[in-house]
């Protein structure tokens, strides 16, 4: 066998930029002999090391797999352009970081699907590995390619490239998958997939077929009765007892989020109607403050990190946040470790809390009103008022901040120019609050915007994105409005959001588009220097599709949706009800107050919970 390791270290690494990101020998990286392992998985993040290493899911799975002596997990990322060129020029295959083993020698290659802009990169990584791109072309000796993460809730554009997907919490499903593969190493690929299809959360796209009637999409159905019409997602029922990594790998060079991440809870009950995470990570599952404190201490002593991010979808909703921040903050400050709270709703923000978390170092603050008027915030069910924002800003300025970032989405359903004027208006009021709070000079109030991308499994899944002309017009309107006096405007990247929208709700006919875009050179599309809209437009056109139409296309209530055969646990009926309420401008309360009958309780099979669901009362609300 070729000694990939010494070739890589002696002849390739010395020629690339930032070689430490490919060295694989960071503290807490796990190196196992492949002689003694029964099954090996390469955990692939289709972006650069600096992005991928910042991702919590990768750390959780790496830890869980490597805890088992007979399994091995290693990491692989997309190489940067200089290394990619060397690899292609010198026919050096894509290898894992830890043992420099080519990807095609793994039993399983798992890609995380975090954002649509990474899809072409997946194709590039398969290509660099010499693994056949299409699952139909792979043989018994090729690894199985699996995808997971939020993108797996509508994986249809990628279905032809993957052997299977894991829908839901992979820490629940992946161990079952590895057990089957370890026990059944020598059966055929097809038989393996049949066995895997029986695991909750596993979706094998080749066992399902998209059907059409006269060119009209009619749904995706199982090819035989062996497979369920809907694949149900996997759920970790209890986070408190679920394994959590304390042995984070410690990169040498700076990565995007170079810190420890402590997951307070999973799921969110707020019910913002644009938010996919708010649906697919239901229900809320918390860890106790005692467990979190224990984890934090262990994490610091095994990594030496200087910062811990308290993470969740909305950390202000954590039941015992004040207690946790107070106690943990004190304990960590003594070790020179600071806390950060990256996901705080502005109605949970207080000056006191801010000072607690900023005990050691002070970082930037972002508030997300999402929309400029109360009417539109009601449509999206954000349930935040202008008063909330101004109070949070005032608190922040009094606590010593001199700048805040305000985040908004452009092109939300029913948005009018009045809502855009509302954005500028809010920003100006925040500047005024700065002066009232006694701030000196000018504050830095940055209005940061992105274009709304409708997502599968959300109440807005039926609506199309606004057109590019509208994006331009609305951006220009904001540019004219947000000027001077401590205000800054960071406008959205319209072109990437069009691509995201076209891929996010697409079906299987997008597979050739993605393959073609990659062949034209698409990769790392989240990076401005790599992204080319023209390349993607061409790839769509060559497949007989129009990228802009795909992005702005809406669905009818009765239309089958390309992801209907994937069960997030939340019913389509609930999503539709929420959609209709949004158009009527009706808000829906946080479901901790009253179960809204979204369907999750049924999925969890908690008999006692089902009684709390008030389906009837909710239905009568419509």
């Amino acid at each position, binding site marked *: 066998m070729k000694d990939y390791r010494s070739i890589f270290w002696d002849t390739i*690494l*010395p020629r690339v930029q930032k*070689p*430490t990101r490919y*060295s694989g*020998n*960071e*503290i807490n990286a796990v190196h196992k002999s492949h002689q003694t392992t029964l099954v090996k998985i390469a955990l692939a993040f289709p972006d650069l090391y600096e992005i991928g290493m910042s991702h919590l899911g990768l750390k959780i799975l790496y830890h869980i797999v490597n805890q088992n002596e007979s399994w091995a997990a290693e990491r692989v990322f997309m190489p940067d352009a200089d290394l990619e060129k060397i690899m292609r020029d010198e026919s050096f295959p894509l290898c894992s970081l830890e043992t420099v083993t080519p990807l095609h020698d793994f039993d399983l290659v798992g890609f995380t699907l975090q954002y649509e802009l990474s899809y072409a990169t997946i194709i590039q990584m398969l290509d660099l590995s010499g693994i056949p791109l299409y699952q139909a072309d792979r043989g018994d000796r090729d690894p199985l390619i699996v995808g997971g993460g939020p993108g797996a809730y509508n994986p249809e554009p990628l279905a032809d490239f993957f052997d299977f997907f894991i829908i839901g919490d992979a820490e629940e499903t992946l161990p079952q998958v590895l057990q089957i593969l370890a026990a059944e190493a020598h059966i055929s690929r097809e038989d393996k997939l049949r066995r895997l299809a029986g695991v909750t959360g596993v979706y094998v796209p080749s066992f399902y077929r998209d059907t059409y009637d006269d060119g009209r999409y009619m749904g995706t159905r199982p090819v035989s009765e062996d497979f369920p019409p809907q694949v149900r997602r996997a759920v970790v029922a209890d986070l408190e007892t679920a394994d959590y990594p304390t042995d984070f790998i*410690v990169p*040498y*060079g*700076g990565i995007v989020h170079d810190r420890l991440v402590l997951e307070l809870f999973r799921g969110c009950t707020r019910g913002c109607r644009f938010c996919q995470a708010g649906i697919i990570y239901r229900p809320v599952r918390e860890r106790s403050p005692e467990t979190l404190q224990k984890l934090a201490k262990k994490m*610091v*002593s*095994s*990594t*030496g*990190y*200087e910062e811990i991010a308290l993470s969740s979808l909305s950390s202000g909703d954590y039941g015992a946040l004040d207690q946790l921040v107070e106690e943990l903050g004190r304990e960590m400050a003594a*070790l*020179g*470790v600071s806390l950060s709270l990256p996901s705080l709703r502005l109605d949970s923000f207080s000056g006191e809390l801010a000072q607690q978390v900023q005990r*050691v*170092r*002070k970082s930037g603050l972002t508030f997300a009103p999402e929309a400029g008027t109360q009417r539109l915030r009601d449509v999206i069910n954000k349930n935040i008022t202008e008063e909330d924002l101004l109070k949070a800003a005032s608190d922040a300025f009094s606590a010593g901040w001199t700048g805040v970032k305000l985040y908004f989405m452009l092109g939300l359903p029913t948005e009018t120019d009045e809502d855009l004027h509302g954005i500028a208006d809010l920003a100006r009021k925040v500047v005024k609050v700065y002066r009232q709070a006694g701030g000196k000079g000018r504050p830095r109030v940055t209005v940061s915007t992105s274009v709304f991308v409708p997502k599968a499994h959300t109440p807005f899944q039926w609506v199309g994105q606004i057109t590019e002309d509208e994006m331009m017009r609305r951006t220009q309107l904001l540019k004219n409005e947000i000027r001077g006096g401590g205000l800054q405007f960071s406008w959205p990247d319209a072109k990437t959001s069009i691509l995201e929208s076209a891929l996010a709700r697409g079906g299987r006919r997008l597979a050739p588009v993605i393959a073609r875009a990659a062949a034209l050179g698409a990769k790392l599309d989240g990076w401005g220097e790599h992204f080319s809209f023209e390349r993607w437009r061409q790839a769509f056109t060559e497949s007989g599709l129009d990228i802009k139409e795909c992005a702005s296309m809406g669905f009818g209530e009765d239309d089958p949706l390309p992801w209907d055969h994937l069960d997030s646990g939340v019913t389509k009926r609930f999503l539709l009800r929420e959609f209709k309420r949004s158009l009527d401008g009706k808000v829906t309360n946080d479901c901790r107050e009253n179960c809204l009958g979204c369907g999750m309780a049924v999925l969890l099979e908690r008999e006692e919970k089902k009684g709390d669901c008030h389906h009837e009362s909710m239905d009568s609300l419509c």
Partner: protein
Amino acid sequence: MRVWIHFVKDAPLRFLSHLDLMRTWQRAIRRAGLPVSYSAGFNPHPKMSFASALPVGAISDEEYLDIQFSESLSDTEFTRLRETLPKGMTIVSWRPVPPETPPLMSLVFASAWRLPLSQDEQSAAAEHIRLLLAAETLPVLRQGKKGEKTVDIRPLLLRLEITAAGELSMLLRSGGDGGAKPREVLHLLHLEHGELRLRKTGLYLNVGNCLQSPTDVGLKEKEVLIDAEKNCYQL
């Protein structure tokens, strides 16, 4: 308690930059649970610095960390630190230094380097060395913050030879602005690609024309003295 730690940076970590190395030490110290002192101010930093910067890609037998702890440390604690360092970084020794001692960085005078050469390289390099040592001046162009400037590195070459083992051996002035960079000398010797085979084998302070390593020099209050019983390289 202020300490100079002598450590080795070996092949697995040769690509770490100066900043990477600093981060790696800070985290190792926190893993070992050692009480490092912090600077005061808005963004407190641990009080630690390296004696000199090592070029990315080079390995070194002679790296030094000058660090201030808020308490006295025992051997057990240093052992704990030694054990938590990444593979490729080894603590050779450590010595407490008086608090008044100037920063090690400011005391460094010279560093020694070795580079293994092939047969072909040896004969070519021998000729280049002869020319270099014969030259009156060796102007080198440097990119500074305020644009380019020319520096004469001839007086900074203290020794340049090929050893019996066929290695290039260099003793260069280093520290602050007054040093020659190994890369500059390799460039003049037409050994541009040699940087990745470079090994730093010595780091010296200068006490009355005697070069001695930070491990060996005598330290008394603010003074740095020769320890006559230890190795000394006479200039």
